[in-house]
């Protein structure tokens, strides 16, 4: 097939404005779509981040105490009684008292240092508290060491700062503190004057928040053997027996109220399954994915429609010329390939400009929104997509052009 580019270029020069507009539209579309794809992909990666929790069977009860003037001992006694009541339920496998939970959307964080008087902290870790049931209730994967013993768990009252002598840490934290080495048996300081010795390592364990400020501390968490007997309230993390999540979520508050009525469990969001917790904490990421996807699809559709519209107009304008070419011996497929090639040239020009715009946009996003640099693959995919889109959009008008009969040449207008 001998495609002559020269005549196409000559013809395009007669439609400068239209050509430039299509190229510009292609360029802008490419710039937006590449960056949108990149953002969508990043946000989707956030959405599927592992929490370390066996999410299918676990739920959380936010339990507030109606009487806030009780002593730590009284609260502790109530918490122990509650835990027994929950564990007796047929649908419940295990439960633990907690001051926070993974994906809660923010919570307790401590700086971690290697010595007590270190000025600049080594790193930062999410702090979880729980008893010897914490790991099993959440379904965490203990990769080294051991779980807490019941005698290691102590009660912590309101606003009390207790540093237990043992801790279980996430693998990410262990490796940050003791790179390459075995962290078991070694100690660290977490904003206290006494050290905590690492007795176990779990992997993975997500932080409580998903904010981007904590990205450099991702996966760094520590668990202290404490019952958080705050006079205000406590979280009970509960693990249902397999397949009995709904029953456990229905029975648990009844059992707690039966144990003691002096508590407040919000009927609306006092009890949340991990599916709900995950849905809520990633709301912003999900919103971004949806918006970016919708805009990308609509943008591609509009650009395609614009190409169809303008090419159809050109075909209509050139019916006579097409007829002359046909009369002079051009075959149908010559006409078809003429329009396809014309579009390829315009789209190609637009794509070149679009690449610059896409990279520029990415740089600006990095500067303004602390975005990551965009890998080349997004550009490649974007370019291919737009070239295909252009060819696809131009095909119908080009086909119509190829069916212009040679006799058109003899008609005026």
């Amino acid at each position: 097939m001998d495609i002559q580019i020269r005549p196409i270029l000559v013809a395009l020069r007669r439609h400068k404005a239209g050509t430039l507009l299509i190229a510009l539209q292609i360029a802008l579309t490419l710039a937006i779509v590449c960056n949108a794809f990149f953002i969508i992909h990043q946000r989707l990666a956030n959405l599927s981040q592992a929490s370390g929790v066996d999410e299918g069977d676990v739920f959380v009860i936010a339990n507030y105490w109606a009487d806030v003037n009780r002593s730590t001992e009284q609260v502790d006694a109530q918490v122990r009684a509650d835990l027994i009541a929950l564990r007796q339920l047929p649908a419940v496998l295990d439960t633990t008292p907690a001051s926070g939970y993974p994906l809660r959307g923010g919570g307790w964080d401590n700086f971690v240092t290697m010595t007590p008087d270190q000025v600049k902290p080594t790193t930062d870790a999410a702090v979880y508290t729980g008893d010897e049931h914490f790991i099993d209730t959440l379904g965490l994967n203990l990769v080294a060491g051991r779980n807490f013993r019941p005698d290691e768990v102590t009660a912590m009252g309101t606003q009390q700062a207790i540093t237990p002598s043992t801790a279980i840490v996430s693998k990410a934290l262990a490796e940050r503190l003791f790179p390459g080495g075995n962290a078991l048996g070694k100690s660290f300081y977490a904003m206290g004057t006494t050290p905590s010795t690492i007795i176990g390592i779990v992997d993975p364990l997500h932080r409580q928040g998903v904010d981007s400020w904590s990205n450099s501390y991702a996966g760094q968490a520590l668990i202290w053997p404490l019952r958080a007997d705050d006079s205000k309230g406590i979280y009970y993390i509960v693990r249902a027996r397999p397949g009995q999540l709904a029953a456990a979520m229905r029975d648990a508050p009844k059992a707690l109220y039966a144990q003691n009525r002096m508590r407040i469990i919000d009927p609306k969001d006092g009890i949340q399954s991990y599916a709900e917790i995950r849905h809520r904490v990633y709301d912003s990421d999900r919103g971004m994915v949806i918006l970016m996807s919708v805009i990308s699809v609509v943008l591609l559709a509009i650009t395609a429609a614009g190409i169809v519209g303008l090419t159809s107009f050109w075909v209509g304008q050139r019916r006579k010329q097409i007829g002359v070419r046909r009369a002079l011996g051009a075959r149908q497929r010559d006409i078809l390939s003429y329009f396809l090639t014309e579009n390829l040239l315009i789209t190609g020009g637009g794509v070149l400009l679009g690449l610059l715009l896409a990279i520029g946009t990415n740089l600006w996003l990095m500067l303004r929104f602390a975005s990551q640099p965009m890998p080349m693959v997004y550009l490649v995919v974007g370019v291919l997509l737009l070239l295909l889109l252009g060819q696809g959009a131009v095909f119908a008008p080009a086909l119509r052009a190829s069916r212009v009969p040679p006799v058109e040449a003899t008609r005026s207008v």
Partner: protein
Amino acid sequence: MFQYYLDLAARSLRRNKALTALMVLAIALGIGASITTLTVLHVLSGDPLPGRSGVIYYPQIDPQDLRGMSPSKEPPSQLTLIDGMNLLHAARADRQALMKGGEVPIQPEQSALDPFYVDARYTTADFFAMFGTPFRFGHAWSAADDEAKARQVVISRDLDEKLFGGANSVGRTLRISGTAFQIVGVLDHWQPNPHFYDLNTGSYAAGEQVFLPLQTMIDLHLSRDGSNDCWGNGGGGTDTLLPADTCVWLQFWVQLDSPAKVEAYRQFLVHYSQEQKALGRFQRPPNVRLRSLMQWLDYNGVVPDDVRLQTWLAFGFLAVCLVNTVGLMLAKFMRRAGELGVRRALGASRRSLFAQLLVEAGVVGLVGGVGGAVLALGGLWLVRQRSSDYASLAHLDPSMLLTTFVLALGATLLAGLLPAWRACQVAPALQLKSH
């Protein structure tokens, strides 16, 4: 003449329905997306205290020790209790209030209602007058009540409706966290957005149900919420119910009615810092800030980055839609070269052809604007279905509705300029000859 052009525009648009529909749709989609995201941005970056925010300021001082110091470092964003009380009692501003957020259990007298938790604001007397809170019944407590640690409370209209069916509950008793409080005031609806006076307890759609004296909270050890930043060995210590003196945890706002007073207050803060340094409490050289309310919101980056990013994205989208419309309009206008040539030959000036084509573009813009407004309403409905704290605020107000049409009309007229100009360049003789 305008009517005639409108008629011509309607005829022309009807003649080529697919192309017209495509143009209108592109404008509508672009405008719909832009207005949806712009409305969210507009709501989130709005002035929480219209007409008042200009005289409200947030003083910052730096009581930290010398560790971890860098020259450009901003002072902490809150105050220690000592400094807060000192600045409050100095009373150098026209009005001032020290405050902290919390959550308290309400124990209703009616046994039909279970106890429940509400957000509380512990503050000082000027809070209400300074922020201009509307009172439905009663009034605020006085500065004397602050010092007396009075068991007095101002409640929100929502709480009044929940507990007392909306009746005037001033003088009645409310049990908060086991203590009897006397209701002295009931606020009318008041929910400044953003929740500027304490951004640590939710930036949007956050509102307290009870307001009571800060000193009373300290006296009763009521529970506190929000941020608490410590340095040195300040960690709250063991079993102390208040944060240590090396912790900042209180917000302090002042009202300064004139630029001279603002400058004087800034001097006062420097002076205070020097004095505290001389006393040995402060270690750093005076490091003070006095930001206005809107500057404070800006400094704290209160509008989420995602919202800004989405707005940029939507306007990029609108740009593509406009380029698309320019191309389609060009095709449409050029196709009418013959008709335009006839009009020129019959005596119409270039100017009137230009006007005629712009009217046509304007009609497309208006119809696209209507479509865009409908799409924006749908888009905002979708935004409200989300669980972000600001989701419930996303509503189209009259000013944004006006913006929709101005933007749609302006953008389409702009898009029509080039095609209309090109179409006016037709040589009438040439057009007439070939037909």
